[in-house]
């Protein structure tokens, strides 16, 4: 036993001694999604890698196969140990990554978030698809767009992934607020969850339509719940009787738009978001200043990226006086949000 341990130790020692630190020429950036194997994140990842090639940096795209905070922390820690210079992350939990990100920042790694943010103290910039206010409003707007000039009572339901997902819940919170303030005639009849499980989304969707037969509009800000709910409408032969809107990639919702089950679906260009995340990280690594209150352009992408203070996002985490108005820490807003209809859906290839 003793012999064995001596052998092990000596092998380990030799290996440690052999190690030579590679001279670094290129920046290494890790691009970490919430989960891999989902079109949204794959598109963002592919564009992030493309942007990396354009800028001459190495971009690694990888992440957990299950939406688990523990797995995501593992990835952050390993990326740091691998010597990445920056991590661009879409966080599964606004606070659960704090310790891992702190360790990373202590070692000089730059942190940029995209899609889903963390506490501003633990990252430099957040490439945001839109504040909850903008996206909540977009959800309500997609419904009102289909009402035309009609005003009056409307029964609305929400159907998305789960009560534990940060971004979807924050949009729904704002959408509810907007409905309460601006459309007092509307009534929210139910909120249902389908855990990013497609068959479950269809089943829950059907039950929703049967339990609340007089529902007029269903808002589904989740990439699985949205097509699932549309499928449920088709299964129960209710095309045209109920408005279904939500967020998902155009390729997923296309077939439902073609069949008129869904008239409008929204999203932002997740490819642009991925590319922008890498671009911002690269600027930080080069030491270029990105300042709150200004705006910048990214070569090859149409539109201006506005850099706004944290407090615009709203909520305790952002209104903390330490970060609310900082100039070197803030939010980068994507230039535009997209609404897909049967007239423009063919334009998008993601």
């Amino acid at each position, binding site marked *: 036993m003793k012999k064995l341990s001596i052998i092990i130790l000596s092998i380990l020692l030799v*290996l440690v001694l052999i190690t030579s630190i590679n001279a670094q020429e290129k920046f290494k950036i890790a691009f970490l999604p919430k989960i891999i194997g989902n079109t949204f994140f794959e598109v963002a990842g592919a564009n992030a890698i493309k942007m990396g090639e354009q800028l001459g940096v190495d971009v690694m795209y990888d992440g957990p*196969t299950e939406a688990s*905070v*523990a797995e995501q922390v*593992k990835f952050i820690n390993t990326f740091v140990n691998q010597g990445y210079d920056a991590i661009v992350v879409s966080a599964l939990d606004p606070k*659960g990554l704090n*310790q891992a990100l702190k360790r990373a920042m202590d070692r000089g790694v730059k942190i940029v978030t995209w899609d889903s943010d963390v506490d501003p103290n633990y990252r430099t910039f957040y490439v945001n698809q839109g504040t909850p206010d903008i996206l909540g409003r977009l959800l309500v707007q997609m419904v009102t767009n289909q009402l035309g000039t009609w005003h009056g009572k409307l029964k609305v339901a929400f159907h998305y992934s789960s*009560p534990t997902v940060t971004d*979807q819940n924050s949009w729904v919170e704002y959408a509810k607020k907007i409905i309460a303030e601006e459309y007092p005639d509307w009534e929210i009849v139910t909120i249902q969850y389908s855990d990013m499980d497609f068959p479950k989304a269809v089943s829950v969707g059907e039950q929703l339509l049967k339990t609340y037969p007089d529902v007029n509009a269903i808002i589904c800000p989740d990439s699985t719940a949205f097509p699932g709910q549309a499928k449920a409408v088709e299964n129960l032969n209710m095309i045209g009787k109920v408005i279904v809107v939500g967020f998902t990639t155009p390729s997923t919702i296309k077939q439902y738009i073609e069949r008129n089950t869904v008239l409008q679906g929204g999203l932002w260009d997740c490819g642009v978001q991925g590319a922008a995340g890498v671009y911002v990280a690269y600027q930080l690594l080069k030491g270029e200043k990105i300042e709150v209150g200004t705006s910048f352009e990214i070569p090859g992408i149409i539109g201006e990226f506005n850099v706004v203070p944290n407090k615009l996002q709203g909520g305790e985490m952002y209104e903390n006086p330490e970060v609310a108005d900082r100039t070197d820490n803030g939010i980068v807003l994507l230039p535009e949000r997209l609404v897909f209809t049967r007239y423009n859906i063919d334009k998008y290839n993601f």
Partner: protein
Amino acid sequence: MKKHYAANYMNEKKRFKNLNIVKRKLFSWQTTLIGLLIVEFVIFGSLNSRFLNIINLMYSVGDFLYIAIAALAMTCIIAAGGIDISIGSIMGLSSIITGFFWVKTSNIILATILGLISGVVAGTLNGILILITQVNPLVITLGSSFLFSGLALTLSGFAGSTGFEGISGFPDSFVYIVNGSIFNIPNPIWILLILTIIFYILLHKTKFGRYLFLIGMNPEAAKYTGIEIKKLTIYNYAISGLGGAIAGILLVSYFTSARSDLGADAPLIVITCAVLGGASIYGGEGSIIGTLLASLLVGYLKYGLQMINITSHQTNVFLGLVLILTISGRYFWDVLSTNYKNKEAVKRFKKT
């Protein structure tokens, strides 16, 4: 009379010998695991020298600490012929209960104790239900896992925070439990070491542990020897619940955030670690040291694969393949070695 004694003696001796073989076999499997661990280190080390950075290696224990702890508890359950699918949901439930009472009372010690108790209660409930229904534990704990995770979700809503934001703002002393270090060695290693020793003593050095093996090996026989199977089963699931709760609370300390879905991904990998460590899913076999080694093996395998830039899709295929090949290799090794031993014995027999 004398003859009888002699026969008895011979029997005793034979039994002793058998026991030795069993021991040797177990030992050899653990040595194999150590061997695999070394091979793993050598391969990853030669592919990416950063892998062997001792500090990083030590700190990455924190990443799979919860898996290893749950696997230790699961080993006791599997050794007694049971299984506990709900261990992941118990992690979520205990973490939320800790968070809930931290928010309500601002007393972190009380909150932690209540979190631990919730795990014990959940485990006890599992045990009682399994006894009442006499239905396979797989089904009972599947049902209770829905129940526990649902309760956790509902409770997190009551904690004042919305379920999606998690509960945070834990005091530094609590955060230090997993994130700190003693004598320059990160706490997760100490915690794992201590819990391994406790579970080792529990399963391998006490009557309780021996009875668990007996129940797992042959529940009918165990009944006739007068073992209180019911009591032991409940204790066992309560311990498993406690193990889940410890893992869950350590996750909260590690992430400084309590969420209802913490640990939801754990059950399958936990069972994998226990079984890879030598526990038989049909009961009667299990080794705490083996489970520890298997947890390290799997934990560092994942870490290493990522270090050499294997993406997680590929990691899945690798993990599955390694699992199957290891166990299959063990089987063929056993077959070959018994064949060899038999032949040797026959040879010896012929000589005399």
